[in-house]
């Protein structure tokens, strides 16, 4: 089977590919975006609100941390 060359400058598969790309970009362009000053403030607020419940941030006493080895009891 010999190969045929087509003299035109386009092909169906790249049209389909380009169409998909344009559709995807249209979807992304239609998204409603919010300014960073507002979203960043929300992120900071979330951190503040939850900092107390974050053990790795605030550290927890050895007695309540199941991974820290408890000191052995000394019987007097």
């Amino acid at each position, binding site marked *: 089977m010999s190969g045929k060359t*087509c003299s035109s400058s386009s092909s169906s598969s790249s049209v389909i590919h380009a169409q998909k*790309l344009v559709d*995807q970009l249209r979807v992304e362009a239609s998204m409603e975006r919010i300014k960073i000053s507002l979203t960043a403030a*929300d992120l900071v607020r979330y951190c503040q609100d939850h900092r107390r419940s*974050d053990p790795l*941030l605030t550290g927890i006493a050895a007695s309540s941390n199941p991974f820290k080895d408890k000191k052995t009891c000394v019987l007097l």
Partner: protein
Amino acid sequence: MCDQTFVAATFGPCESCGKASPLMNIYIKTEAINFCSFCVELMTCQVLQGGESVASLKRESDNLKKKLEEERGKLNDIELHQVAEKSEVLGAFAIKTRRLLKGHGNKVLCMDWCKDKRRLVSSSQDGKVIVWDAFTLNKEHGVTLPCTWVMACAYAPSGCAVACGGLDNKCSVFPLSLDKNENLNAKKKSVAMHTNYVSGCTFTSSDMQILTSSGDGTCALWDVESGQLLQSFHGHTADVLSLDLAPSETGNTFVSGGSDMKANIWDMRSGQNIQSFETHESDINCVKYYPSGDAFASASDDATCRFFDLRADREVAIYQKDSIIFGASSVDFSLSGRLLFAGYNDYTINVWDVLKGTRVSVLFGHENRVSRLRVSPDGTALCSASWDNTLRIWS
């Protein structure tokens, strides 16, 4: 002597209509097109009619890309670290290795915590998947898969099953039983089938569905019971290396990162790619949602970790240092989202202040690259898996 330099007649799925039939191998401007004869006829007709179509589409896509850049640029009125200036500076960070889990015979590639905060599952290059009790270092279950490089493993939300997958191109679910003597391989259920390796898997909100990412460039949602493909996600142009589910109960989106340097946000129900971020300069190895679900972080071979805000639709922070030249393989947030733990190929774990963009601490201990790290569900500990065959629990 057979010299195979001629084109053989091929039979297969037509690139245009998808039907399997004898294909005509033609070349258009050195680009090989494999269409069935019907589609070749159709194409030549279309070409004569719409010769401009590709050019005009390209123009439109370029315009849209420019417009997207402009829109995103308009929102960049302030930097995240500037907003965070009022936050208090983090004090000295003192966590160290509390447990060393030895038992794997080869590189540990992945791990996941159970919701009971004490069990975890890990998988390694030699095909072994082990379920550990992190408090006692007891190995509760062990399974050997027939394939090597088990790159993904996940614990079910109920704690009653684990899913794992890798070079076998499948993701299998193993129900865990209390009976230690039971052979887990007997109950194995093959759920996902990809055409290339499985790089990541996770259960959705229940034990009934799993989401997988694969080297074949797609992600897929499967029903565990029937093994049926519920939804597939196409859009990445190279291997998908990581995925993470949005944290909220009602949320049905997930983020994926791949070798095409893009991180995409997907809608699970429609399969649509709703947002895309392309600022990394190399493969994205790991993606993880911020605890509030409004942002996510990514780790990449370009030695940076980046933070992306979903509502502003752009990157808002880069965590990098001149002294860090090795790729980052895994990231996870602490419970409040203030700390970002990142494992690197230089055997260290760097702890970053998410808001201020500065490094808080470096954790040394592993003797080979860190492949995966996860914060425990209650936030008390961090577990890291490494190519040095061990897992470490830091607290």
